């Protein structure tokens, strides 16, 4: 950007809060995750490792908290009055929420993490200096730092595993921050294909890796601007509004049937991932 750009288009450069005056024009990538369908099988996490060249750090570094699961399955135990804890396990896949008003973006000293016109929270590896402020300010802790130089570390991708690295995705060196990109390499291909045919990306034309492998179809992904997209229909059905920090489920009394919510909405991050609450036995 030039200096004039810096001064005139500052608000576009940094979208502080999602605004209804300046809606996304063509694309707003969003996701919904049905916690009732999630079985905690970890297939999404494995697929992400394969698609996005995530380093397999090994047992010891994993125990030190140096792992890179861009999507991680969290377990929560609800063992009230039950004899065994395992009876009450609930799963929650956590990934970068691609917040519309992302706390990580404002604090990065070098502007390595930015908002794209598609509503993605992008991470520019080449620009990152590794101050890790973004991670400190991320309430979801969905960002992962390259604590070591994995491309040169033994046994991260042992022969012939290095052959399966995805050529569309950078292999990150030490000292940069990384996180879920909503499989931006796939989005780019789909968008460029669509553009060459003079149309927008159709619903279902592009899938994220985690969505593709989910055996129960718990993850749906698509363009929120497209009225025919499944994800948009789900958001509408659950009355979840991208620009609100409180959803119908928690506001209206008559909304007992609604399950849609976003995590830590009260912090006004306006995430792009909607979760559908798990149905409890008691609720049915």
């Amino acid at each position, binding site marked *: *950007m*030039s*200096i004039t*750009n*810096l001064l005139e288009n500052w608000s576009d450069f*940094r979208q502080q809060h999602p605004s209804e005056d300046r809606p996304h024009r063509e694309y707003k990538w969003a996701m919904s995750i049905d916690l009732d369908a999630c079985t905690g099988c970890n297939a999404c996490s494995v697929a992400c490792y394969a698609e996005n060249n995530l380093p397999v750090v090994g047992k010891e*570094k994993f125990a*030190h*908290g*140096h*792992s890179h699961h861009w999507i*991680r399955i*969290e377990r*929560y135990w609800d063992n009230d009055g039950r004899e065994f804890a395992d009876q009450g396990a609930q799963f929650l896949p*956590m990934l970068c929420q691609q917040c519309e008003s992302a*706390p990580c973006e*404002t*604090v*990065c*000293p*070098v*502007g390595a993490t930015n908002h794209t016109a598609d509503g993605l929270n992008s991470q520019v590896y080449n*620009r*990152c*200096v*590794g*101050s*890790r*402020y973004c*991670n*400190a*300010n991320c*309430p*979801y*802790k969905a*960002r*992962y*730092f*390259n*604590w*070591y*130089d994995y491309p040169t570390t033994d046994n991260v991708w042992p022969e012939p595993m290095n052959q399966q690295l995805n050529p569309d995705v950078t292999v990150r060196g*030490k*000292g*940069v*921050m990384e996180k879920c990109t909503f499989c931006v390499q796939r989005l780019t291909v789909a968008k460029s294909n669509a553009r060459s045919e003079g149309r927008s990306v159709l619903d279902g034309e592009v899938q994220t890796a985690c969505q593709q492998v989910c055996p129960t179809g718990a993850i749906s992904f698509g363009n929120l601007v497209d009225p025919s997209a499944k994800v948009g229909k789900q958001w509408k059905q659950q009355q979840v509004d991208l620009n609100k920090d409180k959803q119908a489920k928690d506001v209206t009394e008559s909304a007992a049937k609604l399950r849609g919510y976003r*995590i*830590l909405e009260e*912090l006004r991050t306006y995430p792009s991932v909607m979760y559908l609450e798990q149905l409890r036995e008691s609720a049915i």
Partner: protein
Amino acid sequence: MGKDIREDIAWAQINKDVLKSLESPRKLYWVILFIALAMIGVAVGCEIYQYTGGMGVSNKNNSHVWGLYIATFIFWIGMSHSGTLLSAILHLMHADWRKPIYRFAEAMTTFSLMTAGLFVLVHLGRLWQVYYVMPYPNERWVWPNFQSPLVWDMFAIATYLSSSVLFLYVGMIPDLAICRDNIHAGWRKKLYTVMSLGWEGTDRQWRNFRITYLTIACFLIPLAVSVHSIVASDFAMSNMPGWHVTSFPPYFVAGALYSGCAAIITLFIILRYVFRFEEYMTLPIMKKLVRLTFAIAMVWTYLNLIEFASVWYGHDQTAKDQLIFKATGPYAPFFWAMIFFGSILPLMLAFKRIQTHLPILLVVSILLNVGMWLERWMIIAPSFAHGHYPWTWDHDQWPSLVQWGIVFGSFGWFTLLFMVFCKVFPSVSMYEVKEMVYHRSLALKHKPAVKGDY
């Protein structure tokens, strides 16, 4: 209380005593210098290991992304504030007891800022790209992110460092001329000749000098307050429970003055012994310094309690959980040690007998700084172990020896810079001590002798 300084010291004697410090310190000086070098060696080794291996060797992890480096960074930045307090604020307030001790306090400011700057580099994952933080013209027109408190930090610290170097230097010009005129030929003579900028002590030079000095002093005071407020913004502007506190900026400034004053007490005692400054760094001055430290300690305690109270009575449940976690969780011993060293121990300074008891003061002042270091660490570490999101909970992280080694070595780096400065430049301001002696002898002439405080 005795006199701050004897009124009958001859001016030539002042010159002689201070110039002597440039030549023959006690043996302890060389011992200190050697220890400092060894400490730096440890840190350099650790940093080389971390640079080649990656940040992982410091044993931070994906929820504890910041650690001792940032805590110690704040500590050193904080330490720098009291130099400005003594040299600029007390200068404007005409508190002349500062005169024999402000020079080394001002040097402490400069060198602790230089030490703090190193921690920024040590902390970065890709320190070879650190220049990205600076706004420099480049063919892609890429700018730093001016919204980020870290960028404000960069500007604030760079401005503060350059201003305080300038202040230290300008205030030293008349003294450098004295050195130039009195030292035998050699590299030092050349150095002093160049640095004293042709000072001859003419009327016009003194007038210009006074105005310049006063201007920089006035410029430096708001700067000192804003620097630590901006460092506090790194935390207060974020959304982490335990950091997102409105009262952080004044709290940080008070903490900074506190640890700085404690450090001045420590260095006062060391310099007084090593360079034989007993005539100038006198016990009555120490007494005033200790009282000042005591007052600041109480301000800090008050602001600390305000922070706890506003969290406790507020509606932010996560922040409240964070506070309870600090006081009862795995970090509890350090938290309570911080309260003890920072708020309980300084109560000792209220006793008159202790106010001039140097061995006790040496130990207490070091412990006060241990408390202030713990305060910074207690801001950083527990917040990462108990954030908004349950995934961060129960994440134990203990800094590795690499982190401890670099923190340890930073004290050596500071000591080395400081001790070399005191050997090369006059660490007591000769011309201002003369002023002080002169004004006091005048006052003595015009006033009938009274018993007690003067």
